[in-house]
């Protein structure tokens, strides 16, 4: 296997909110190898977006703080870089795509300027070169009539077009890694399909690795090579996509997979939801955070936090009863 591209080790990111400490990311470790697509999956508030923001060192101060851990990208710990050095990594080596393109694009700069600026700053292109690059990029992401589009502003673009523009910006400096935070959640299904096919195709063609953050289990199944499932600030299960879906070994993953209706299966009379709701991250229960909702809970779960341990080849689960969770019986 080639050398690891991004290696996040024991990352802790906390927020101080009205006197309480919210452990948004509570000691997670994950990695991305060149060219692969890795997913961070989980529900709102599980810490998946904060993980990505931590990699970019974009956690909002003063409330948010990376407390400890290492984020080693191409052999350098990003947490030890100066702000200036970090600015050269953002947008150049690591591109980012956000969920809501309208709030992450600058409404008073033309589309052209937003595409030419990064390549002029990071790659030292001349205005003529950067313009040619901008046209090339827009065409690459499937925006027709690129030359005319450069003069327009984000509000003149549709939602799908704006997301294409974000992808073009993220790709502009040939990054080794793209962080995509819910890139298609705000889009309609037919547009979602277009954008995901585009992203997958481009990351293959250009050899960029992708970290995909999403709550959509279908999107993960379609596009990810490896999956990290997050719950309450921790990774509870990790493995190849095929392994995670065919043989889930954490009760939360099992619960997620069972709670969604599937188009390819006979319709069930009743869905199997996960009971209860996610815990308050400032008042986590002792032991396993999922214990209060878990159907397999045993005494030990309420006292000791289970470590993320191997349960098979390249398959890890943080559960005291992981070995007893066999193949799920289809409902």
């Amino acid at each position, binding site marked *: 296997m080639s050398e690891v591209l991004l290696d996040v080790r024991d990352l802790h990111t906390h927020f101080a909110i009205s006197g309480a400490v919210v452990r948004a990311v509570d000691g997670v470790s994950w990695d991305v190898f060149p060219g692969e697509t890795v997913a961070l999956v989980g529900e709102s508030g599980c810490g998946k977006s904060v993980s990505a923001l931590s990699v970019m060192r974009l956690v909002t101060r003063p409330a948010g703080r990376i407390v400890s851990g290492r984020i080693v990208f191409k052999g350098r710990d990003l947490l030890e870089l100066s702000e200036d050095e970090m600015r050269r990594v953002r947008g150049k080596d690591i591109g980012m795509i956000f969920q809501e393109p309208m709030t992450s694009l600058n409404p008073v700069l033309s589309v052209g300027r937003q595409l030419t600026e990064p390549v002029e700053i990071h790659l030292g292109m001349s205005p003529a070169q950067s313009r040619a690059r901008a046209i090339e990029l827009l065409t690459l992401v499937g925006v027709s009539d690129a030359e005319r589009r450069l003069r327009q502003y984000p509000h003149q673009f549709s939602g799908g077009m704006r997301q294409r523009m974000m992808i073009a910006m993220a790709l502009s400096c040939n990054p080794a890694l793209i962080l995509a935070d819910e890139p298609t959640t705000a889009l*309609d299904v*037919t547009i979602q399909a277009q954008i995901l096919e585009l992203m997958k195709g481009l990351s293959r063609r250009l050899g960029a690795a992708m970290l995909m953050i999403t709550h959509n289990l279908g999107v993960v199944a379609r596009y990810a090579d490896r999956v990290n499932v997050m719950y309450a600030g921790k990774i509870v299960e990790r493995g190849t996509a095929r392994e995670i879906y065919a043989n889930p070994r954490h009760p939360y993953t099992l619960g997620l997979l069972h*709670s969604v*209706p599937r188009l390819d299966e006979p319709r069930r009379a009743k869905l199997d*939801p996960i*009971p209860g*709701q996610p815990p308050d991250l400032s008042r986590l229960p002792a032991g396993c955070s999922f214990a209060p909702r878990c159907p397999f809970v045993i005494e030990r779960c309420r006292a000791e936090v289970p470590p993320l341990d191997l349960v098979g080849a390249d398959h890890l689960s943080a559960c005291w009863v992981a070995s007893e969770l066999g193949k799920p019986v289809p409902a």
Partner: protein
Amino acid sequence: MTGELILEVRDLVKHFEVGGGLFGGPPGLVKAVDGVSFTIRRGETLGLVGESGCGKTTTGRCILQLERPTSGQVIFEGIDLTTLGQVELRAVRRRVQVIFQDPYSSLNPRMTVGQIIAEPLGVHGIVPERRGREARMRSLLDRCGLLPAMALRYPHELSGGQRQRVGIARALAMEPALIVCDEPVSALDVSIQAQIINLLEELQAEFGLTYLFVAHDLSVVRHISDRVAVMYLGKIVEITDRKSLYDDPLHPYTKALLSAVPIPDPAVEAGRERTVLGGEVPSPLNPPAGCVFHPRCPIAIDDCRRAVPELREIRPEHRVACIRV
């Protein structure tokens, strides 16, 4: 289990005038809903699916008379609601309730959960005396899976799933016959979505409710609906029972929609054929001539550009608006 017609929508049209004003740009006409007809029987769930801007929400709002239709009829329990004035509508509104996508923006932030649920009981004279209202409110909370202590909380103190339960309890308080559910679970996390869907189904069985379930998630719609209508750019392109729609979709747009839904199983996904639709939904300000879907349609022919296809009955109870079917 399903009985007589409870709702009949006939040739519903809702146009919005846009622009023209001081800053409005050139005047135009958005044909948000453009000739929609369907029926719902008592006790059944009709799913209304489509992408943003297809007119599904406006259709729901026209049924509720929150928008007055430009033309057409909305016949609920034998009465055409479009002919009623505000006073007469108030009585009908008790019987036709709504659950919104974002319960946070549809719950009064300055009222407690208890007040939110109890208020309509008094206003509509459902439970005239105060003490009775209190008891009724508590039983509604309980029925919707909320603890009694929740009555004293404010909406901002609740999670998304709890807020949606409050929205459901409030609708239920009116003892409605029909509930328009407008994307009721799309803002919720998947583990909570399933809880709310199960709750809606239990309540339907218990109180004999009829649902118009407006949503964009085809897997959820399949789970909850008895019949399904697919909308595109203001028109219904296909309508039939759940089984026919999902097992044997006929309209090319329905087929593309179904193929765009990713299935949570990599082994299934690997072997799946995908039809990725090109282009985007055209602007309803300036819809294409002929069949509105023809610019994106993989099987369009020249004739599709000319005539607007009628919603024809291809098989019993299976209507499709496509000349190629």
